[in-house]
């Protein structure tokens, strides 16, 4: 069974499937009920699964995540929607000190199968706090898993896999692509495991690493220089744990790597990837691993966000620079 879906629709369908498969799955968040979420990802689910399973929460993120912890202890599998990336911080304490640590604290006796869905990244012309990329902070926290989907097929499967995971998962959704291009989603296929990275375009000169919204940018970049340079693109998909296998294999071949993300460069995922690649591919590297990301400033006013965000040209500029070494 295949169906053409946007990312938004694919996530919606994935959530619906997970709720059908397991009555313990609950959705919680602000406006997830009648409204179906501000991005409509939970559209229609309250109508079909009722107010006890699709729960409009009071406007308090710490409360949402904190009650999800209690529900998880009672055997539920809460899927929490944080309305926008910048609103996850009031829940930060519950996430890093409770959600992330309860399994460890209890020596494995209490699982925290909570999914925290975060529409992340910029490019939608929004006001402050609506375009952030907080992934590095969560990936730095042991006990959390962090993944990012980049297309409808992954959206459909990864959300279900995250919900099935017995570990808490920070689930990042590239919001600017929610209502973008459709893909054929084969709902009867067997998906790859959640914590795997994937080569999405083969190449031999340089490796581009991306996740979430930057995958598309990197693919376009690779296309733009087709013929001149053979660019391999890897969709990391999983940010914690990282799946270094395909990355190392690729960089050992190409000798050059550029890591891209929308998050600020300083202490972003690119730092960790650069450090690990250098450790694991030291003798293969023709150039240092370069990083392209948001500048080390707060996210800017939307009229210049496209300049602030790394785009095709800035990615290619970095690719060029790796050839200058």
């Amino acid at each position, binding site marked *: 069974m295949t169906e053409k879906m946007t990312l938004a629709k694919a996530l919606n369908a994935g959530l619906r499937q997970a709720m059908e498969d397991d009555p313990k799955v609950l959705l919680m968040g602000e406006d997830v009920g009648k*409204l179906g979420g*501000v991005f409509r990802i939970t559209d229609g689910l309250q109508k079909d699964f009722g107010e006890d399973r699709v729960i*409009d929460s009071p406007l308090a993120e*710490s409360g949402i995540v904190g009650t999800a912890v209690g529900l998880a202890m009672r055997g539920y599998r809460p899927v929490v929607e944080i309305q926008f990336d910048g609103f996850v911080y009031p829940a930060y304490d519950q996430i890093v000190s409770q959600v992330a640590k309860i399994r460890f604290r209890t020596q494995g006796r209490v699982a925290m199968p909570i999914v925290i869905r975060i529409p992340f990244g910029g490019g939608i012309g*929004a*006001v402050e706090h609506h375009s952030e990329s907080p992934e590095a902070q969560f990936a730095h926290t042991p006990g959390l898993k962090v993944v990012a989907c980049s297309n409808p097929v992954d959206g459909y499967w990864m959300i279900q896999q995250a919900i099935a995971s017995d570990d808490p998962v920070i689930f990042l959704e590239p919001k600017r692509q929610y209502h973008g291009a459709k893909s054929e989603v084969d709902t009867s296929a067997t998906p790859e495991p959640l914590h795997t990275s994937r080569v999405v375009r083969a190449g031999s000169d340089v490796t581009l690493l991306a996740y979430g919204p930057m995958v598309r940018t990197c693919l376009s970049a690779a296309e733009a220089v087709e013929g001149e340079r053979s660019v391999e693109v890897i969709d990391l998909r999983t940010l914690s744990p990282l799946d270094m296998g395909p990355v190392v294999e690729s960089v050992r071949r190409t000798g050059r790597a550029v890591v891209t993300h929308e998050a600020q460069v300083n202490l972003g995922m690119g730092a960790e990837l650069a450090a690990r690649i250098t450790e694991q591919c030291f003798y293969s590297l023709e150039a240092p691993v370069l990083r392209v990301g948001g*500048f080390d*400033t707060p996210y800017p*006013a939307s*009229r210049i966000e496209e300049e602030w965000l790394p785009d095709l040209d800035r990615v290619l500029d970095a690719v060029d620079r790796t050839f200058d070494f």
Partner: protein
Amino acid sequence: MTHVPDGEFGPDLAEVFGPQQSDGGPELVQLLTPEGERTHHAEFDMDFSAEQLRGFYRDMVLTRRIDTESTALQRHGELGIWAQLLGQEAAQIGSGRALRPQDFAFPTYREHGVAWCRGLDPLKLLGLFRGVDQSSWDPAETNFAPYTIIIGAQALHATGYAMGIQRDGAVGTGDPERDAATIGYFGDGASSQGDVNEAFIFAASYNAPVVFFCQNNQWAISEPFERQSRIPLYQRALGFGFPGVRVDGNDVMATYAVTQAALQRAREGSGPTLIEAYTYRMGAHTTTDDPTRYRLSDDVENWKLKDPIARVEAYLRRNGLIDEQFTDALTVEADQLGERLRAGVKELADPSPLSVFDHVYAELPPELAEQRDGYAEYLASFEGAH
């Protein structure tokens, strides 16, 4: 669910709120009925001069014009988004006009009427919603803080600033030019945030000169007020040991009177007050919202009958305090304002991409300077290419 068949855990709201709840309940302070009739209140009564009332009316009409004009500008693509205040003009003008110059206001993202009262050029607001800046006014110039988007955060800022006022000895001196207070605005949804409740705790603990002004417009995007609280919101204050008052937020006179009293109490050193301005968000949450998905148009129609501007206008007309000449002049003024906004918004230039490096820190650190210079060079390389 076995215990409550319809899957709703909340208590029977009619029972908790009482039958008059949709009118604001028996505790609602009102000085002007929806029909424009003057009523009186034991505690918060007040005389208004004709001048004052005409001023309120003018403020509300012009604020509404800013709002409708901006909504239109968003539709025309000049703004990225707009948060409408339609229906909340009285709550904002009544409270905003009760402020003295030395008081300090901490708004959310919807306090365009308060901004107006503080003397802020509305074009400054448009900059933020257009996306050319994130708040471009100097808060110290008009004692009006930046718009705050993180729900409830500013309630703590208002409390902290009030603690500063205390430390400056600007409370309870009896000097009307000196004694000051802050006012922290937030919505009914925001009342659920930890920050707002912590603000209540700090304000109570230090007896800080702050007025918490909650515009209960019945909605937090799609969530009705009952999701946040099962009792009227002004009663929240009882749990923290300071007074709470519910005022008719569509009644500019009552709102002014209540806010004025609360501010005065704060300035005198008697501590915080929570004001719940009972009102209604007549428009969408923002221009990106579609309220037909979650609320009945009947409700909206009912609230139209309580329009804050219509009732003042009725009162002023009935009492001969305004005439055609006044309203004609006001229409002209509103039209000019609209024109100024339409023309002005187009002049709100996009910032230069390199400006993102300004003001991250007091001084640009070397590593960031390097980043900026690299980016400047990169940008220049394209210019060369043309």
